[in-house]
């Protein structure tokens, strides 16, 4: 099985190698290589998936390890592991990835770097799949960085555009900050335990190898990586800018898979999180969820709205992990991957159509992403519209769709967490969650209404809008189908709960090694609490989502409220939200400018004080050397010149010996030999 997984991983790498070296020369620029590779991977991962389903064992685990480095006594083992989480992740990644591949055939058609795009997609698939199957922190870190690299390459794919290349760099640098924490975390773990392997780490922690303080530090530092990659609160700034990349990239990387890597990582290391680090995670996640949702309300760029919604949803997942609802968080990752990829692809479809329309009309200065120019596309693009609507409903947490199931679980989990712990401050977490849920429904429907309903804002563009080709709509339909509740509740058919589904059975919260070490359960949530919280959360979340939708319709569709006035009345709040709470500016002012200021200070120090000292010493040296120069010229040079003259004179005489005649030399050599022999004999 591990071999199959490795094949799944290596196929896209092979495709990448072929594509990057021969892509241009292959027929159709070789897109079929990448697509074929990822489709085979998809089939193989389905095979693994059905194997797992067939075994129906929640403790399903296959491992294989090999020795990587041997330095005397010191060994480093690396290994692969497949459990239900990683197999589900494999399936998710391959599904989304292959759909995006197919989608890209239509979307990227005619791009001058078409084959390179597919090469990058393949490389990305390879690194993401590799990240999933590694069983050790080192391998994960390796693939983590590869994923970051791919992200950089793909965001900056249209590097001729300054904004794209800037966005790529921004993503890369911001990620590096998180990765630094990740690396330090890994090093802490390795220095304390001496192994990268997750199973060994788990065992060591259960045996009490690491103190609680170290554990907390390691957990938070490892989570730093997730903050960077999953765009959590302080490091979220790169994700909206990453929308400069091609839309398939946004769908693949920045909605479904790469950003989920952080969540996946936290789920993987959840066994080693102490209560303190869990609290940090939960609050970061919860805050991000609400915070990003508020920004999303006011954005006008279709992809930016989706980007902020992604950040918000990732916040949900992180929060779920923080409150100990790992299964819920991971569940949301899976469902979210499907409908968010769909949303992005749908928005891509709209943008594609807009772009074509603008192209026809020779409009080049307007942004095709801007929802203010859209409206009334419902009739023109029925397939896109209906699938988009399904995704939106799923994201808003409406029953009968997959999003409801997972979001509900998370909200229930956070509520249960607050109820289980005495501290009333912890009620902030469900507050964050529920508010964000309402806001999510609100801004998503704002997006749908402004895009698909109502009067077209620009008649000329509207007339040229056409439905996208099949390669674009078919992935959309597949993803829409996968956003229906039924796939996730099987064999149960209850649209309100996934409690009897295969997922619930197969994916269970991992045993916390920390709990074993401490001797008591660090995050005790009783079944009763969980159940009551769940029911409460379900009712509340349906209510809130409906509220958000109705509010959205009343403002934007029925126009019960005047949007302008509302914004005016909100004033400062609107401005804050519209400008993303000035985060970029704050970073610019604090970190960037602070750094520049510090540099300027150093520069001044350098030029004024150090240079002054140096100049002073130079002055002293100069004067001293003037004196010594006098001495040199008259006394030393005199001696030297005399020696040189002597050498020259003697050379003039000795040169005659050096005739250049081989014979003369041989005479001399013979003479020497004879002398030596004679001396020796005497």
């Amino acid at each position, binding site marked *: 099985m591990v071999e199959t997984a490795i094949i799944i991983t290596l196929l896209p790498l092979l495709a990448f190698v072929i594509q990057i070296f021969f892509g241009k020369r292959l027929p159709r620029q070789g897109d079929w290589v990448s697509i074929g590779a990822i489709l085979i991977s998809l089939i193989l991962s389905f095979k693994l998936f059905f194997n797992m389903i067939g075994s129906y064992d929640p403790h399903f685990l296959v491992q294989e390890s090999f020795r990587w480095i041997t330095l005397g006594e010191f060994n480093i083992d690396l290994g692969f592991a497949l459990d239900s989480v990683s197999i589900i992740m494999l399936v998710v990644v391959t599904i989304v990835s292959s759909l995006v591949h197919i989608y890209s055939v239509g979307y990227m058609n005619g791009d001058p770097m078409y084959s390179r795009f597919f090469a990058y997609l393949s490389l990305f698939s390879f690194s993401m799949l590799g990240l999933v199957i590694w069983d050790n922190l080192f391998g994960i870190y390796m693939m983590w960085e590869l994923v970051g690299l791919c992200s950089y390459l793909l965001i900056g794919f249209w590097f001729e555009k300054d904004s794209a290349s800037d966005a790529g760099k921004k993503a890369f640098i911001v990620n590096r900050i998180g990765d630094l924490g990740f690396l330090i975390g890994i090093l802490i773990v390795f220095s304390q335990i001496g192994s990268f392997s997750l199973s060994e780490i788990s065992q060591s922690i259960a045996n009490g190898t690491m103190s609680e303080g170290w554990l907390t530090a390691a957990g938070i530092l490892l989570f730093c990586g997730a903050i960077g990659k999953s765009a959590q609160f302080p490091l979220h700034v790169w994700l909206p800018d990453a929308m400069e990349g091609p839309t398939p990239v946004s769908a693949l990387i920045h909605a479904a898979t790469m950003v989920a890597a952080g969540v996946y990582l936290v789920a993987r290391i959840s066994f080693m999180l102490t209560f303190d680090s869990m609290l940090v995670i939960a609050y970061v996640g919860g805050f991000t969820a609400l915070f990003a949702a508020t920004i999303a309300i006011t954005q006008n760029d279709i992809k930016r709205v989706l980007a902020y919604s992604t950040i918000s949803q990732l916040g949900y997942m992180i929060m779920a992990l923080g409150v100990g609802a790992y299964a819920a968080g991971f569940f949301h990752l899976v469902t979210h991957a499907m409908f968010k990829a769909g949303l992005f692809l749908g928005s891509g479809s709209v943008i594609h159509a807009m772009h074509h329309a603008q192209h026809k009309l020779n409009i080049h200065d307007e942004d095709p992403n801007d929802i203010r120019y859209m409206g009334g596309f419902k009739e023109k693009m029925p397939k896109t519209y209906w699938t988009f609507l399904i995704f939106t409903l799923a994201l808003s947490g409406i029953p009968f769709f997959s999003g409801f199931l997972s979001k509900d679980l998370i909200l229930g989990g956070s509520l249960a967490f607050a109820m289980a712990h005495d501290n009333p401050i912890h009620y902030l977490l469900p507050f964050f969650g529920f508010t964000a849920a309402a806001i999510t429904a609100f801004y998503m429907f704002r997006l749908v209404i402004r895009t698909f309903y109502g009067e077209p804002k620009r008649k000329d563009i509207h007339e040229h809008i056409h439905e996208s080709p099949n390669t674009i709509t078919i992935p959309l339909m597949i993803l829409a189908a996968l956003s229906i509740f039924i796939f996730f509740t099987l064999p149960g058919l209850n649209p309100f709960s996934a409690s009897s589904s295969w997922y619930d059975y197969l994916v269970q919260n991992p045993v916390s090694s920390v709990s074993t070490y401490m001797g008591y359960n660090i995050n005790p949530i009783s079944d009763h609490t969980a159940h009551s919280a769940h029911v409460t959360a379900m009712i509340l979340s349906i209510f809130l989502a409906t509220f958000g939708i109705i509010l959205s319709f009343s403002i934007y569709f029925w126009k019960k409220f005047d949007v302008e006035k509302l914004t005016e009345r909100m004033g400062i709040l609107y401005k804050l939200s519209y400008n993303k709470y000035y985060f970029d500016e704050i970073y610019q002012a604090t970190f960037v400018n602070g750094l520049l200021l510090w540099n300027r200070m150093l520069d001044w120090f350098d030029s004024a004080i150090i240079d002054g000292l140096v100049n002073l010493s130079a002055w002293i040296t100069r004067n001293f050397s003037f004196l010594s120069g006098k001495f040199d010229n008259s006394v030393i040079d005199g001696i030297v010149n005399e020696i040189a003259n002597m050498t020259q004179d003697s050379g003039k005489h000795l040169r005659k010996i050096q005739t*250049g*005649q*081989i*014979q003369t030399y*041989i*005479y001399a050599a*013979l003479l020497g030999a004879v002398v030596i022999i004679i001396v020796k004999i005497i």
Partner: protein
Amino acid sequence: MITLNTYLVISGIVFVLGLVTIINKKNAIGILMGVELILNSVNLNFVAFGRYVDFDIKGQIIAIFVIILAAAEAAVALAIVLNIYRNKQLIDVTKIDAMKN
């Protein structure tokens, strides 16, 4: 009776003859031939010592390396001589003195 000394004498004579060749000839290729003679005489010594004193193939192997070196030397030397001849129409080493002074 063939002994070590027989070989040493032969090689000594050839060595001296090579020396005389080098001293005697003005022609660059002639000098090269003298060098070859000397190399051969030395080679004979190596092999003879290997046969009579050392009882090993070391002497022969050194001889092989000497042969290889001689081949390389001859190739390069002749290339140089031909080049000089092409440029100066001269082969007499006593007259090739462009580097002098």
